[in-house]
């Protein structure tokens, strides 16, 4: 009787261990460094000041690209605030030229274009908003291996939700996507990860 019970307990212990390990594993997947950098293909969008923003302007800086829309009341404002906290965290430990810029890729042009400038000014004057023609938005979305969909219930639905990928893409100064950050974008841990990533990458040019 007793050995049976012991082996049952050992079994239970092992199951618990497996559960713990799998949890720990999923926690580390908040940050995914891509095995090979993923080149961003040419695209042409506008920033919130209606100035052209294409692949060339993506280069020579580290950038964090977040996909969202300006009528998103819950997740987008909080993510923008959290990413600013990540930048503040990094600012203490990295030279200013290496701190990533924050790009907000707004995927709902009909509702985003009229308000994007005021929307971003409200969050942070240095944020860059990207919008433009649907085909050009789709070009960049494709390069980032991301996804979005305007969830219109009827053709004239004006209060539709927009489904979009939650991750933030990390773009290096060569215009290549090198990593993905998944929510919740904890400032300290995300800052740590990005600093290691940025310091670990050496460019000859």
């Amino acid at each position: 009787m007793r050995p049976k019970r012991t082996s049952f307990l050992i079994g239970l212990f092992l199951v618990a261990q497996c559960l713990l390990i799998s949890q720990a594993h999923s926690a580390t997947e908040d940050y995914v460094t891509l095995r090979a950098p993923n080149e961003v293909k040419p695209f042409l969008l506008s920033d919130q000041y209606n100035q052209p923003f294409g692949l060339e302007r993506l280069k020579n800086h580290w950038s964090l690209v977040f996909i969202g829309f300006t009528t998103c009341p819950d997740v987008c404002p909080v993510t923008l605030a959290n990413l600013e906290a990540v930048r503040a965290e990094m600012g203490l430990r990295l030279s200013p030229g290496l701190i990533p810029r924050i790009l907000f890729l707004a995927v709902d042009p009909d509702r985003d274009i009229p308000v994007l400038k005021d929307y971003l000014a409200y969050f942070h004057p240095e944020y860059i908003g990207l919008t433009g023609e649907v085909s050009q938005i789709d070009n960049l979305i494709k390069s980032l291996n991301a996804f979005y969909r305007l969830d219109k219930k009827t053709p004239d639905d004006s209060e539709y939700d927009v489904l979009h990928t939650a991750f933030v893409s990390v773009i290096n100064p060569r215009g290549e996507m090198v990593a993905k950050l998944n929510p919740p974008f904890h400032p300290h841990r995300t800052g740590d990860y990005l600093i290691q990533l940025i310091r670990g990458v050496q460019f000859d040019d």
Partner: protein
Amino acid sequence: MIRIVALGVLVTGLLAYMYLSVSRPDNKIQVVDAWSPAAPPTMAMHAGYLSLQNHSSDSIELVEVSSLAYESIEIHQSLSIDGVLSMRMLPSLSVEPRAKVQFKSGGLHLMMRKPLAPRPLGGSFPVSFKFADGAVIEFLMQVSKTGLVDTETSSTDTHHHHH
């Protein structure tokens, strides 16, 4: 002088308590820390966050949310399915006996459409919850800055700082 200061502190504390925590007259249901992130004036949809506590031994069902300050308010839930964010509307919300439900970013939230008045930072507006048993509670929701926010999926060492 000290007495006046003490009285002031007491009154302020009492007002803050009344402001942040509203109970149904029978004390069975309590709303605490109701706030809405300040948003650009261009935004016509705002989120509302709070904590709803059921102190009773019966489950309760929130069936209607309204406010003089908005055209309509719905209960929404943000979802993350395979890394894709979306929202769904909940027709009502049940709270188990002695349970607390947290409305916070990335999870349950109030989706408030078309504000009927400007929302200054630090200002507040009344919100009304109606329950299936006919009970109604009114509370004030404060407009606060979006600080560093503890999202639904984040670990326990982040906290929102909205005061």
